[in-house]
């Protein structure tokens, strides 16, 4: 098993945590993620440069300037902003929340830069404490804080090895702000090509104000030898979070990319509106896995992240493949539909999802599979788990265009209810314009009832452990899609998200 490499993106930017390292196989970060209560509820008290609340052209110019962006990027942002101003906030999802005041959000927050400290003693102890909570080893902390480290240190050699290894193969893996400066031709060509700026309200907003995100480029014929992973964290108060990820897999290449997310525990709701674009060329494959654990709010529904994200991939070339796997346990509201546009003939789109809602959480999530090329195939496996008084909706579109002869889709949408006060909803949309298409949809609803729990109790398994056992069994088909070290952690995360949901 290859150790994954990791990119940490500080969404309030400023500090560029771009580094690649060999992670221990028992990924320390996810160990932390799955701690009992919402352990990520800490806030790091770091001196920050904050813009005043509100959004205007000046704010966008400020962000772009801070990022030292080229003129074309600023122009692109401003165009998106102009489009956004003309758009209306969408209201069609099966979730409810108070209207968001977009002038009440801070669009730029940056930790004050320090000139390269000589040792960790000079680094803001709060920042170090944050790293410790994240379970980042001391040597990596040095790298993150820009401390000059002796090159002979083992982990640094490892780091160099991986950087060299990736560079040798022509793989680019860096924050998108860096890519805009270092690889403008690639970014210019692809950004907005899958999710146009005016695709929807939140993609327009993201395009105007995105702070950072990650960029991956896998050249022709290269199979990325390690898992690439990015870890996102929201820290500042009142700030909106807008990251942007762009992954390009050239002809015949392969990459597996992992994304993890956490946020501090706060009483207020925070908006997270990301955009992820994937491009798979001929015979290329992109596997994108997410373990989303943004702060879900407390038991009474106070606080938590509004997670309004646009994720889309295009299978550009023949026989290309894009596979989305998501384990969604966090956020007060999750609203996203990782989608695949199947343009190339014989291309394949997959969507594997486990969405857990507990307490007052709401999730409206699913996928869109757009069949354009001939003999394209898609597979959707969605497992919703609702507990407490939460609402969990699957919403999926399978669209087969006239051109797509021989298209096939298989969808399976299962709902698991825990208790009597939660809800599960399924909204499948099928639009088929080609008679040769085969589209199958299966749905089931089941419940963890008293009988099953008592049976487990009678075999010595307490109720919490029984729920974990049952839920993991139920979600197994999706968890199996995750890289192994993630799957184990995701299992624990599922169990913990549902603690206290029964009895």
């Amino acid at each position, binding site marked *: 098993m290859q150790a994954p490499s990791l990119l940490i993106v500080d969404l309030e930017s400023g500090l560029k945590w771009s580094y690649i390292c060999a992670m221990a196989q028992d990924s320390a970060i996810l160990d932390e993620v799955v701690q009992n209560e919402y352990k990520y509820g800490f806030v790091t008290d770091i001196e920050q440069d904050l813009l005043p609340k509100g959004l205007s052209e000046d704010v966008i110019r400020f962000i772009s300037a801070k990022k030292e962006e080229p003129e074309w990027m600023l122009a692109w942002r401003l165009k998106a902003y102009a489009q956004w101003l003309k758009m209306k906030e969408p209201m069609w999802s099966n979730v409810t929340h108070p209207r968001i005041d977009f002038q009440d959000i801070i669009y730029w927050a940056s930790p004050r830069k320090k000139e390269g400290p000589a040792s960790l003693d000079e680094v803001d102890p709060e920042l170090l404490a944050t790293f410790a909570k994240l379970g980042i080893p001391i040597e990596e902390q040095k790298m993150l804080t820009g401390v000059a480290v002796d090159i002979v240190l083992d982990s640094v050699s490892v780091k160099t090895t991986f950087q060299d290894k990736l560079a040798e193969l022509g793989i680019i893996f860096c924050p998108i702000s860096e890519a805009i400066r270092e690889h403008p031709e690639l970014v210019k060509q692809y950004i907005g090509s899958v999710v146009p700026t005016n695709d929807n309200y939140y993609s327009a907003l993201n395009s105007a104000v995105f702070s950072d995100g990650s960029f991956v480029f896998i050249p022709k014929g290269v199979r990325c030898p390690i898992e690439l992973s990015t870890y996102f964290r929201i820290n500042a108060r009142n700030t909106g979070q807008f990251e942007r990820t762009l992954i390009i897999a050239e002809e015949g290449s392969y990459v597996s990319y992992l994304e993890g997310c956490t946020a501090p525990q706060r009483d207020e709701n925070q908006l997270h509106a990301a955009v992820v674009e994937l491009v798979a060329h001929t015979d290329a494959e992109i596997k994108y896995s997410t373990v989303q654990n943004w702060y879900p709010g407390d038991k009474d529904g106070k606080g938590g992240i509004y997670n309004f994200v646009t994720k889309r991939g295009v299978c550009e070339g023949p026989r290309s493949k894009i596979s989305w796997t998501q384990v969604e346990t966090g956020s007060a509201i999750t609203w996203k539909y990782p989608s695949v546009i199947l343009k190339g003939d014989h291309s394949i789109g997959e969507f594997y999802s486990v969405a857990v809602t507990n307490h007052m959480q709401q999730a409206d999530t699913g996928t869109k599979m757009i069949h354009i090329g001939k003999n394209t195939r898609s597979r959707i496996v969605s497992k919703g788990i609702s507990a407490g008084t939460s609402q969990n909706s699957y919403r999926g579109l399978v669209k087969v265009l006239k051109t797509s002869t021989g298209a096939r889709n298989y969808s399976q949408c299962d709902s698991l209810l825990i208790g009597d006060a939660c809800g599960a909803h399924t909204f499948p949309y099928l639009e088929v314009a080609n008679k040769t298409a085969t589209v199958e949809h299966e749905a089931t609803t089941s419940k963890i009832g008293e009988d099953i729990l008592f049976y487990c*109790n009678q075999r010595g398994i307490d109720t919490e452990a029984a729920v974990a056992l049952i839920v993991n069994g139920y979600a197994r088909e999706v968890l199996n899609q995750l890289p192994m070290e993630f799957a184990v952690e995701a299992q624990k995360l599922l169990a913990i998200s549902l603690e206290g949901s029964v009895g």
Partner: protein
Amino acid sequence: MTPILQITELTAGIEDREILKGISLTVNPGEVHAIMGPNGSGKSTLASVLAGRADYAVSGGSVLFNGKDLLELSPEERAREGMFLEFQYPVEIPGVSTANFLKTSVNELRKHRGQEPLAPAAFLAMMRERMKLVEMDQSFLSRSLNEGFSGGEKKRNEIFQMAMLEPTLAVLDETDSGLDIDALRIVASGVNALRTKENATIVITHYQRLLDHIVPDVVHVLWNGRIVRSGGKELALELEKRGYDWIKQESVEEV
């Protein structure tokens, strides 16, 4: 000798309805007790109360299990202390394999006894050996627990679990319901093979035929929430011949 189970004047019911109206029963190590009675006499309620099903409320009396106050324990604690209920209607758990379920269960019991979890290889070997007791095929291990199992397969799976958990007290609740004669024989021989001088079994049944295979030391007749008669195994034969009416008659006359 401490009895494995000592029930004294137990009363219990569901909502406002009293079903058990004062049951006393002592089960010693090495013994097999049969509890018989017509439908609605309280047999399954007794099994549920012993296992700790939440629907039932105990209103009086006491139950000692290996000297401990059973009624103070949660259902999982009772199981970990060595109480096993063989379910009349075992549940199905999709996605959870029989092997995984049993591993979780066995390791919970081991943890309770201060033992390390069993290593996977040792656990697999143990499962393979004990499945033979009930002539179960190994393919069941990787199938979801009880999902798509026939009635007989579910009951054999229950006895297989009993073999893995090695309880000190097994309560078999209407094991024979829905079993054909071959499955009955297999299940019964499994139960017999698991009998030792240290453990005990309570067999709850409506019919005598199961007791041809699992021979009890004591037979109790439950009627209207009370044990109205106890005797040796010949009592079961008498019931088979004469039905329950004469017992009902007698106990009414006694009142």
